């Protein structure tokens, strides 16, 4: 049984043994094959792998945004102990609104081109719970009528109190909150930006807006899916710097999905390496780079061009990513693995712990070695 060492009390998101298939006319795509990992409170977990390994699918599964033909056959996804697999659509929507915020790679398709940034931010902000709106209203000097809020103590009273907020007042609060988050993402001149349309902003600015929209919901879990991949290097550096700042101040726990090991090294606390629908290794970031155990992780690090290391030191991983309709038996990496032996072709290696906080799914590290 796959397991990952964790302190249950700290785990914010627990993904356990998730299996997911896509029903397509060409066959069953076995996209996720028992994915297990945890995101602890306050940490940034990097989920790294090449395209097609299933990392984006995993994120979609967490937030419940899977396409029609996807079917989760096994496993659990626990957010703060609540199983996300057997909740209603409405409950899932609430979770997406208030607890989990997801930011995607391409801000152009994510933002509505016919609405101003202000309008879109407002939409998001107004999703905020009445309690928080009331808090903000109380904090800001929105209206004299709101003095009643300060003495309201029970949730009920607060809800009642905030429902007294007129539409106009709610909009004012929403605007104030919008400006606030735009400041947090270091966008200059927020008032102007609120009036602009997405196409008037650059790629980097749009990405910041998306992050702002995520922040506005005050989520407990932030999922970032390849958010710097489409950006230029200098802009990417700015966004990474922003995320570093936010990491300690505002962002709660983060699941950072990327294929770029450099981004992982710069932002993550812990890293999970994914290949063909499996988690093959999990470790703390320093440990992973210093001591990669899984042959795929090792291969990946050797295959990435690095400044200063000559071309001769660049080692490709032979072969190519497997067809997930007919995946290899046993360990899905075995056809490309330089260390594969008989057992690898038959039995899928479980994720076991090898050292402090370091787990790996590979028969080389099992009880019995060849």
């Amino acid at each position: 049984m796959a397991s990952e060492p964790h302190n249950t009390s700290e785990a914010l998101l627990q993904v356990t043994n998730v299996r997911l298939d896509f029903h397509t006319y060409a066959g069953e795509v076995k996209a996720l094959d028992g994915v297990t990992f945890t995101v602890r409170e306050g940490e940034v977990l990097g989920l790294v792998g090449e395209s097609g390994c299933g990392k984006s699918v995993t994120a979609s599964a967490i937030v419940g945004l899977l396409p029609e033909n996807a079917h989760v056959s096994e496993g659990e996804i626990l957010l703060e102990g609540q199983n996300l697999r057997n909740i209603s659509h409405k409950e899932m929507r609430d979770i997406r609104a208030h607890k989990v915020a997801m930011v995607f790679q391409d801000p152009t398709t994510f933002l509505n081109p016919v609405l101003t940034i202000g309008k879109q931010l407002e939409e998001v902000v107004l999703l905020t719970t009445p309690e928080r709106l009331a808090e903000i209203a109380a904090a800001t000097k929105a209206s004299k009528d709101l003095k009643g809020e300060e003495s309201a103590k029970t949730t009920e009273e607060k809800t009642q109190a905030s429902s007294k907020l007129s539409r106009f007042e709610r909009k004012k609060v929403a605007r104030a909150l919008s400006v606030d988050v735009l400041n947090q993402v270091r966008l200059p001149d927020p008032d102007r930006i609120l009036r602009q349309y997405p196409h008037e902003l650059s790629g980097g600015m749009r990405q910041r807006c998306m992050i702002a929209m995520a922040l506005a919901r005050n989520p407990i879990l932030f999922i970032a899916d390849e958010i710097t991949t489409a950006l230029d290097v200098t802009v990417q550096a700015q966004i990474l710097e922003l995320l570093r700042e936010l990491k300690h101040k505002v962002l709660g726990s983060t699941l950072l999905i990327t294929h770029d090991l450099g981004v992982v090294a710069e932002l993550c606390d812990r890293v999970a390496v994914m290949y063909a629908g499996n988690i093959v290794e999990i470790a703390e970031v320093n440990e992973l780079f210093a001591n990669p155990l899984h042959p795929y992780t090792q291969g990946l690090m050797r295959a990435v061009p690095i400044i200063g290391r000559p071309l001769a030191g660049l080692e490709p991983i032979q072969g190519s990513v497997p067809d997930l309709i007919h995946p290899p038996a046993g360990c899905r990496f075995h056809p490309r693995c330089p260390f594969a032996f008989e057992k690898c072709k038959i039995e899928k290696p479980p994720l076991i712990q090898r050292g402090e906080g370091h787990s790996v799914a590979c028969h080389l590290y099992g009880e019995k070695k060849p």
Partner: protein
Amino acid sequence: MTQPILEVKDLRKWFPVEGGGLFSKQKRFVKAVDGVNLEIKEGETFGLVGESGSGKTTVGRCIIGLLTPTSGQILFRGQDITKLKDDSATRAGTKLGIVFQDPYASLDPRQIIKSALTEPMTYHKIAATEEEALAKAKRLIELVGLNEDHLYRFPHEFSGGQRQRIAVARALTTNPELIVLDEPTSFLDVSVQAQILHLLADLQKELKLTYLFISHNLSVIENMSDHVGVMYLGATMETADKKTIYRRPEHPYTHALISALPIPNPSLKKNHELLSGDIPSPVDIPSGCRFRTRCPYATDYCAQKEPLLTAREQSHEVSCHYNLSLSSPIPLTQTA
């Protein structure tokens, strides 16, 4: 000093923009390439690096003949290929090859690989008969790491990496001397990327090719190039040999570009030099030095006069008014 195989002199490519109202007389241009100078020596790899809007792809397309420059010269072995017409243009053109960025779109989906390879050979009469062309196609397909049965398949039956290999084979059908590689690995997975880079390096040695390697990825450029040119907003900012550019860049843009790169080594503490703002639009290029709006060292003079690409030392040219002594952007504990 031997003549460089390719020289680009003050190349400009401006695209007119339909702008203004019905009555606007002012013509606006997207100045995609706005003054590019570079020299490539035979047998070496010249890395052209830049972010979006830099114009590097447009330079590649001008060199290969897909676009006609607005002004400037492109000299292949001393001959200005922009001035050639018809047959001589074709002859010169076949000495240049190109591999495009998107392996999924660069092959005719309805053409089997064998035809894709034999077509240029029979068209240009490089092979006298179909049999000869087929034999050569077999040699080429094996040279790029695939085998003979692959010749009888369609592009969609191959993976991205394999298609790129086919694209390389196709570029080689006309016996080119210089190949423009336009982001050849950007669409490929990391592990496949390494395979293609090695293939390109091996082919270069074996066939004595010259490469113009265009990319936005600084690590790939560093691995593959002998000489590097940095472009920003249509113009060359700096050119130098690889070691100099990465260790002692003198242009603030080059410096920022290199230091912005995330390094896959968490134990190295880096001081990222961050540029402020975003890349301006190529329709509205800043006056004077085009980089000044983001440059931490810009002065008033920078807004008045555009700096020229001038040599600071042997084959190290910089386009900047000032002699800034910038520290190395790469952390010293980086692997040598």
